[in-house]
């Protein structure tokens, strides 16, 4: 168990001399708290698996350091690091029983037999694998096999962290829920640091108390699900998280107002020191934009369609070239296909070159 610090860590598959834009993992400095449940969220190819493999030692980073409780473990091999990792596809040792599979990581480290038996029994109980402990592991279903893989990750009580690399990809949706709740429960019970890689925001938001969003090799934001939702630090976080994602509109921002097509939208905060020459955008979540009947003083939009999600309806609208989603209140209809947009000023964010700008109160 340990705190994990990444210090100016970066990795390039093309070597350290390659231009930094090509790095699979761009320099990152961050801390993973002991006992935290983290999700590493991002689209395919954003570098999340690279980061995970760097932490576990499968990949040696081309730059930077990894500290476990302050001790530099960057040069140590995977075997010597106190880390457990569960892979996308179940890895089972064919010739062994389920119990022997679970015992394997402990046996390799010379843990006394009585201790092994105790741990295997405990993990077997936690993962509902008890009835299978003496059976050959090869004859089980995919989800049982993945449970064994999880079990091998959890069986060591001394690990600094357990890393999960999209472990539920091969599992049926129904079982996915069960296994995820199981993981969550295990996290509470075992007090382990867990880092869970996924490209599925539901999975990330339900599992983790801290979500780390990655984009194009960079960590763009790390925070609680609520923070990611309320205050995305990067336009990418805005539209990647949430369904539908955040509306991002190019705008001119001056003081307490933003201008779109000459139309003025009031802001809650003052933005006087925006970097010159930067691309300025405003972002607002569809939940905080409402379509109403067109009225003077409101931005006019063309309605393309209305998606009924059951509990809530979202109108897909168009302002000039920009597409937006907005909440459509019950009973809203439009006679001529146009609507006025009502923004909630407290939930409008301003972005300069995709990065959040804090306004003055």
């Amino acid at each position, binding site marked *: 168990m340990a705190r994990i610090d990444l210090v100016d860590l970066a990795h390039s598959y093309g070597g350290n001399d390659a231009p930094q834009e090509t790095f699979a993992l761009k320099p990152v400095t961050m801390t993973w708290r002991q006992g935290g449940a983290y999700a590493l969220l991002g689209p395919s190819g954003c570098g999340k698996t690279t980061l995970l493999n760097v932490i576990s030692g499968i990949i040696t980073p081309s730059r930077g350091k990894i500290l476990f409780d302050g001790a530099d473990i960057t040069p140590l091999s*995977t*075997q010597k690091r106190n880390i457990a990792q569960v892979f996308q596809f179940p890895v089972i040792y064919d*010739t*062994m029983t389920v119990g022997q599979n679970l015992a394997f990581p402990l046996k390799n480290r010379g843990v006394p037999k009585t201790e092994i038996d105790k741990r295997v029994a405990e993990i077997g109980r936690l993962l509902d694998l008890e009835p299978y402990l003496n059976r050959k592991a090869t*004859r*089980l*279903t995919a989800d049982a096999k993945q449970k064994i893989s999880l079990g*091998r990750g959890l069986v060591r009580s001394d690990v600094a962290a357990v890393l999960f690399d999209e472990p539920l990809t091969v599992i049926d949706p129904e079982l996915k829920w069960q296994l995820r709740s199981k993981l969550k429960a295990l996290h509470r019970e075992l007090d382990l640091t867990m880092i869970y890689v996924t490209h599925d925001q539901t999975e990330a938001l339900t599992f983790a108390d801290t979500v780390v969003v990655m984009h194009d090799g960079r960590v763009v934001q790390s925070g609680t699900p609520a923070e990611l939702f309320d205050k995305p630090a990067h336009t990418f976080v805005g539209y990647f998280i949430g369904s539908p994602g955040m509306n991002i509109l190019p705008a001119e921002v001056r003081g307490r107002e933003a201008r779109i097509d000459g139309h003025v939208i009031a802001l809650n905060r003052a933005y006087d020191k925006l970097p010159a020459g930067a691309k300025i955008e405003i972002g607002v979540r569809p939940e905080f934009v409402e379509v109403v009947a067109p009225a003077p003083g409101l931005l006019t939009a063309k309605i393309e369609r209305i998606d009924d999600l059951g509990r809530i309806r979202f109108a897909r609208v168009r302002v000039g070239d920009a597409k937006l989603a907005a909440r459509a209140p019950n009973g809203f209809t439009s006679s001529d296909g146009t609507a006025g947009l009502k923004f909630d000023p407290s939930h409008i964010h301003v972005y300069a070159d995709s990065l959040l700008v804090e306004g003055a109160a």
Partner: protein
Amino acid sequence: MDKTVNQKAWFLVLPVFLVVAFSAVLPLMTVVNYSMQDTFGNNQFFWNGVGWFKELLDPSTDLGGRFLASLGRNLFFSLVILAIEVPLGIVVALSMPRQGWTVAACLVILALPLLIPWNVVGTIWQIFGRPDIGLLGYVLNHIGLDYNYVSNDIDAWVTVIVMDVWHWTSLVALLCYAGLKSIPEAYYQAAQIDGASRWAVFKAIQLPKMNRVLLIAVLLRFMDSFMIYTEPFVVTGGGPGNSTTFVSIELVKIALGQFDLGKAAALSLVYNLIILIVCWIFYTVMTNAGTERKHQEGAA
């Protein structure tokens, strides 16, 4: 539904029947026919019933003695070369590179001995081992080892075994390499995470994943070595004395050397039967292993 009567299919099947009849059934029946008779040449045959077969299995007779002795030598030879080639092939496969241009180089070098005709292999080693002009034989004698495969039983055996190992270890190595290449990278990564030593990785991952190809390798090498003829015949001619006379060499001696067609026919039938039985055992074991695997995948 009525079946249409159509006899035309016979024309399609008949050629196969004929080819099989002339290439397999008729020759085999001829051998069965010979095995029941004795001949003193001049195309005169005398009925002998199962006499030859009785003699074959009785070590006190000349025929039985020779057959059982050569069978024993042959089995010993097969066991020795399997005991060397299988572990050696695994070691070679494990130490081969996984990627880069060296892979192609290794594969070509390994494949070379497999591509050399058997009697050429025999000739190579026959010359290589000669004490007067062969590099191996000359060097060994020069450094004080009294090596002569023509006069010394053990030297002859060592030569024949080393030759077979040289010729065929590549086959085992290539099969194992194919088996190793099919193991997903995640297994090795998981083993690293689990803190497995090199030996534990071999035992827990590599060996179990190779067991199918290993079974095939053992089958191929056993069959081939059990039927071996050309290479030892070229090198030692079965000598010195009878020390490297394997079953096939004995068979040729009886059939073509002494022209004892009856005895040779009986011997070849028994020889054939042994090979068939061993083949069947291997086949059963292999398909059982296969269905077991399918079972597991079906359940998964």
